[in-house]
């Protein structure tokens, strides 16, 4: 993967967003190329399932393409895209829970195997901790995971999350509270012998 394909700052996207809003299809295609890694990353963190994440990415851009004309630019394009991704992924997660057997959960990816090469400045210890954190996130129940990812990883507000998921703000807060608690338990209380607390997140960050 070349550096140019990595996500860029919001200002770099503005001319493309403006052109896409005015109906320039090639500008929208370029937006897809520049943001798909970030969108896929979010989709995969939300669904914890590679195939679903790919479907979510496609559906997200299809919705974005249909809605770009009405995108007012009040928020950053990427934030707007996160919200569409969150909404699409949440629908996907609910559908998967209804239609798929639990056995499929065995296919859940191992983020440690799929991530891009670690940033040079990322220490081995920190890298190991982030791998553990990714695995723990995937172990959260989907409804809690969505909240933790959107709030604590992507920084969306309770209000934005509640709106996209179709839940109340208080429900969003309760789920976030439970999600953080469960994640904390997964990281510290349920650590396996080879993932001793002292060698994991405790000293890495």
């Amino acid at each position, binding site marked *: *993967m070349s550096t140019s394909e*990595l*996500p860029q700052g919001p200002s770099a996207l503005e001319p493309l967003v403006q052109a896409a809003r005015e109906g320039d*299809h090639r500008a*929208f*295609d370029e937006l*897809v*190329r520049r943001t*798909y*890694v*970030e969108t*896929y*990353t979010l989709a*995969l*963190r939300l669904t914890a399932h*590679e195939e679903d*994440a*790919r479907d979510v*990415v*496609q559906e997200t*851009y*299809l919705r974005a*393409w*249909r809605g770009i004309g009405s995108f007012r630019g009040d928020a950053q394009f990427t934030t707007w895209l996160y919200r569409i991704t969150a909404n699409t992924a949440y629908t996907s997660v609910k559908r998967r829970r209804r239609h798929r057997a639990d056995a499929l959960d065995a296919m859940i990816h191992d*983020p440690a195997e*799929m*991530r*891009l090469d670690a*940033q040079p400045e990322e220490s081995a210890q*920190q890298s190991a*901790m*982030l791998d553990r*954190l*990714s695995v723990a*996130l995937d172990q959260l129940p989907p409804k809690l995971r969505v909240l*933790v990812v959107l*709030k*604590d*990883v*992507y*920084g969306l507000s*309770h209000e934005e999350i509640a709106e996209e998921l179709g839940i109340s703000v208080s429900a969003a*807060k309760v789920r*976030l*509270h*439970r999600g*953080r*608690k469960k*994640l*904390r338990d997964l*990281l*510290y209380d349920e650590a396996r012998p080879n993932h001793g607390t002292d060698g994991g*997140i*405790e000293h*890495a*960050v």
Partner: protein
Amino acid sequence: MQCDDVARILPEAVGGGAAVEDSVQRHIDSCLRCQAELARYRKMLRGLQLLRTRYLEPAPGLVAQTLALIEEAGEREARRAILSGKRMAYAGAIGGAAVAAGAAATVVIVHRARRKAVPAAG
């Protein structure tokens, strides 16, 4: 204030989501166990924030598939717009023809009615 009470509050309070009461703060300040617990949550949140820029690579082909899907949807919608335009034109033509036919029928009926009315009047 007990450690268990603090433990219940921490998941929300640590991210700035809830104001911490003075009694809670005083307990944490004097309790090593709760300080350690707070540190764990802070480290966890810091780790989550770092995940934000840790990108995951999709298998090849996703961009091409996505762009193809958008193009296909665009063509489909363009076809639908054209068909919709044609339907409107057909509907307009049929409507116009119906109005014209109705007007012609009215003229004929009025004409016949006048012809019948003339002898009666004479």
